[in-house]
């Protein structure tokens, strides 16, 4: 199981001192947190994407590229990448680039953003949020898996003989999760592609999270990616821990009471009862998060928000230290021991490469080659005849595997039955 932290790098005044970090302090602080996350043994660092104050996360791949250079093992992810307002061509390029620079330590969580006004800032229409997420993502996948793309859709100019560069590292795109809090359509999208589903439940009761995850799991099985319990699930979470629980409660309460996202609503006690927020000793945090699998089943990724509510950088760093040294070792040991053998880990670059290589070998195909397969002239588009042949053949084989999987699934059988019925009607 993967554990990590995620940040949206909000600039929130510390309610106990009134101190407000500068943009530089906050941005550099996020990088420090990522480095510490690796040092204390966490697996994942994810950064959000917002394009408005009080956030300083408008350029995730710049941040992640910088973090990649400062770390060695940490998996770099997003929380989330706006699939609605970013041009899928730019996402394809940026994250393939990051893959190469970070040696494959990259995945993404797709999201639709938390604020309506972001749509017009990037020339899009919020009323088409879902449609944008569907079309853009489908194009993004094609840009990563097909060397040369001809495409036409609703929301951007058509592409003719377009090659997104660099090609994904080792010919394997980053693994993708889809984040959604309330939209079944996004869970459906994740399930359709066999992608991960990330439920950022930090402001929601577990009964809601459970329903969303169950829905995604059913649909994952429906599309033939495996059994429902093999679907790839991630959860958000947040805590504040001190050795003694009363110290944690005393220290965190002024932050809770005044934070823009919590304050002046439910009491901290009510909120901690209803949501994953846990304020107490490391043991209490462990107990709370061990129980998540009782609601959502064995899952693959647990990310924590630690730098929120105006907590000072130093305090957030202490929380990462406690998380990595006191909380996660126990969660990891216990949850990994409980997970049945047939439930997979979250895919990584290495596992995706291995799976692809195994599939090629099973088909008697040559191993994947990353030899440069494009023309090198000026303004060249498309594959060279000699270099492109193998890549084309292997892409066709991959497409065939996908078709076979879908045909053998419940979804495929439904489609076949419907088509047979329609054909029958046609003869009458």
């Amino acid at each position: 199981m993967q554990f990590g932290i995620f940040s949206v790098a909000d600039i929130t005044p510390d309610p106990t001192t009134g101190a407000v970090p500068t943009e530089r302090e906050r941005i550099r602080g996020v990088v420090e947190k990522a480095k510490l996350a690796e040092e204390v043994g966490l697996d994942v660092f994810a950064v959000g994407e917002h394009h408005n104050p009080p956030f300083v996360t408008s350029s995730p791949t710049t941040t992640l590229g910088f973090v990649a250079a400062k770390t060695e093992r940490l998996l770099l992810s997003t929380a989330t990448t706006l699939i609605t307002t970013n041009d899928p061509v730019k996402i394809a390029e940026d994250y393939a680039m990051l893959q190469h620079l970070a040696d494959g330590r990259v995945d993404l969580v797709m999201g639709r953003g938390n604020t309506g006004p972001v749509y017009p800032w990037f020339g899009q229409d919020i009323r088409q949020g879902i449609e944008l997420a569907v079309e853009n993502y489908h194009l993004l996948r094609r840009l990563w898996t097909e060397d040369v793309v001809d495409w036409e859709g609703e929301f951007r100019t058509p592409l003719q003989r377009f090659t997104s560069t660099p090609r994904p590292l080792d010919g394997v795109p980053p693994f993708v999760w889809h984040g959604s809090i309330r939209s079944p359509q996004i869970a459906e999208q994740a399930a359709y592609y066999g992608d991960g589903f990330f439920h950022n439940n930090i402001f929601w009761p577990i009964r809601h999270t459970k329903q969303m995850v169950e829905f995604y799991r059913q649909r994952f099985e429906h599309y033939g990616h495996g059994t429902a319990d093999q679907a790839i699930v991630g959860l958000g979470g947040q805590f504040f821990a001190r050795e003694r629980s009363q110290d944690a409660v005393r220290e965190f309460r002024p932050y809770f009471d005044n934070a823009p996202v919590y304050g002046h609503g439910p009491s901290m006690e009510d909120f901690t009862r209803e949501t994953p927020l846990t304020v107490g000793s490391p043991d209490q945090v462990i107990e709370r998060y061990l129980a998540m699998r009782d609601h959502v089943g064995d899952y693959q990724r647990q990310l924590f928000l630690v730098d929120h509510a105006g907590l000072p950088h130093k305090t957030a760093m202490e929380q990462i230290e406690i998380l990595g040294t006191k909380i996660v070792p126990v969660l990891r040991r216990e949850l990994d021991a409980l997970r049945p053998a047939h439930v997979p880990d979250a895919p990584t670059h290495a596992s995706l490469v291995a799976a692809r290589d195994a599939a090629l070998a099973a088909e008697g195909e040559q191993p994947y080659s990353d030899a440069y397969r494009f023309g090198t002239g000026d303004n060249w588009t498309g594959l060279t005849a000699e270099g492109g042949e193998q890549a084309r053949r292997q892409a066709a084989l991959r497409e065939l595997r996908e078709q076979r999987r879908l045909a053998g699934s419940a979804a495929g059988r439904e489609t076949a039955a419907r088509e047979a019925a329609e054909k029958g009607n046609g003869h009458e």
Partner: protein
Amino acid sequence: MSDVRPLGLVVISSGLSVPSTTRMLADRLAASARDVLERDGHTVRTSFIEVKDLGHDIVDATLTRFAGERLQSAIDALKAADGVIAVTPTFNLSYAGVFKSFIDVVDPGTFTGVPVLLGATGGTARHSLAIDYALRPLFGYLKADTVPTSVFAAAEDFGAATTAKAEDSLQERTLRAGTELAQYMLRFAGITGGAVAPTRARTGPAAASAEPAVDQRGRAGALEEFADFVPMGTLLGR
């Protein structure tokens, strides 16, 4: 005559004091409807939502956008109701703010087609049009099936300024309203014929799914949230 299941009557009472004339009116309206139904051989299960007791939960839900467990059980009761009695004090021409706040955290579609009897209380009968001016449009918007007779109780009604048998006494008005609600409930529950289901605009996603997103009367069904999607193959034109 034995019913398959008891009829569910849910009473929303948003009086703010104890004892509350709003609750007294709500009790009388509930008793009146129940008496009519029981006389007819039906079993009635009445439950009360005391909005005052949910005050903090309602504000919390307004801010967090999810209902805590206690508030959720009240909302769930409404979703299963065969009839609703809604009673509020009159403040500044309209329903109490906390009453509206409660309605605002109930999921859209909950009242669609549901028989609702409206009641209000106030210091004097001069405020009685608040029901038709404020409450009825609200429930009209919610597509509730409001019964024609509503009951406004002023302080003088509880002082029995009129005799019980007088045509406009609180007792008589309560009885008329309760009788109407009972008839509407029987129709809504399908025990008597003639129910008219309000139509709900079916968005594309729900139409494409196998499970009905709404029950036969057009009310929001429990499955609605997760029926609201289009299978990806359809979206991608496959």
